[in-house]
């Protein structure tokens, strides 16, 4: 893994970072690289309220904000920026405003690497809009000034159309941090992780490798 100067991560929902790149970020942080995470919304529209319910539509954002703070702490991210947009509305925001938001962060932080979702291959409309905004912001820079752009993709057609990911990080050495980050988003992951220990014990290869090998594609402008 190449040593980076500064990493800027841009995702729309608390938990996107933990599912997609918690291990990768933990490895970079271990290597001394500062990480800034711009989280665009608080996941206000999350559907999992439990039955019997543990939250309401109105109390969920407070819960998810705390979960985000816990996850960021578990990974060791020093600079979290909550951008105050609303879940499921990112694609309806003014595109220029979103682009400028990213441009300002890049100008300020001068990251050597930016991580976001791959437009066209990231399923949720907020993911798509976030990836598009980051791509627009970087595309405006002159080629020699652009940071590297690594994108997370998981649509059903991503392997067919993008080919194999060119970045695969084995994060087993920091798996405790990855798991702690995912567990921090309890409202989102409790059911998923309920039988985690069992799956590891049973060596369920697909589930484990999905979590322990984080995949990204270098964006092609």
């Amino acid at each position, binding site marked *: 893994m190449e040593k980076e100067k500064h990493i800027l991560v841009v995702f729309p929902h608390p938990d996107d970072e933990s599912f997609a790149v918690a291990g990768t970020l933990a490895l970079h942080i271990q290597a001394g690289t500062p990480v800034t995470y711009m989280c665009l919304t608080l996941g206000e529209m999350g*559907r*999992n*309220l439990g*039955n*019997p*319910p543990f939250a309401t539509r*109105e109390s969920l954002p407070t819960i998810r904000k705390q979960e985000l703070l816990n996850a960021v702490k578990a990974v060791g991210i020093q600079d979290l920026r909550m951008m105050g947009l609303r879940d499921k509305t990112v694609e309806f925001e003014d595109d220029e405003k979103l682009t400028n938001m990213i441009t300002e962060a890049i100008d300020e932080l001068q990251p050597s690497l930016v991580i976001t979702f791959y437009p066209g291959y990231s399923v949720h409309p*907020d993911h798509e809009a976030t990836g598009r905004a980051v791509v627009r912001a970087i595309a405006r820079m002159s080629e020699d000034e652009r940071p590297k752009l690594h994108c997370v993709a998981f649509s*059903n057609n991503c392997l067919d159309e993008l080919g194999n990911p060119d970045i695969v990080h084995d994060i087993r050495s920091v798996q405790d941090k990855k798991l702690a980050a995912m567990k921090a988003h309890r409202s989102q992951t409790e059911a998923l992780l309920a039988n985690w220990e069992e799956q590891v014990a049973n060596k369920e290869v697909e589930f484990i490798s999905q979590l322990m090998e984080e995949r990204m594609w270098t964006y092609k402008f």
Partner: protein
Amino acid sequence: MKSIDLKEVQAVIDSFAKQDVYLHLETTNGAYASHHNEAFFSAGAYIRNALVQYEHGKIIGEGPYRVGLKLSIGWIYAEGLTHFEVDQSGRLLLAGLDYTGKLAVALQLSYSPFE
């Protein structure tokens, strides 16, 4: 939130009638429905902070429940409601939670705008 008590919710609906109230109305099958099942037709709708006034409202059904609010020139309704709460701000929060605890529908009323 607790399971809907028809009488209790009806009383709250009555208390919001004939005055300006802010409405949150939402239906959703989740953003991943078509990802997990490509044959699934994904649909939903969302209104936050519509300022409305209803003449009367009613909750009906045997659970899950339906709520209809009659406006002077129109209607608001939601079906599939299972749980409710009157929160600390006096807002009526009605939700329809599926068997796995995922929100499918929400109808909420408040005297002040939702944040």
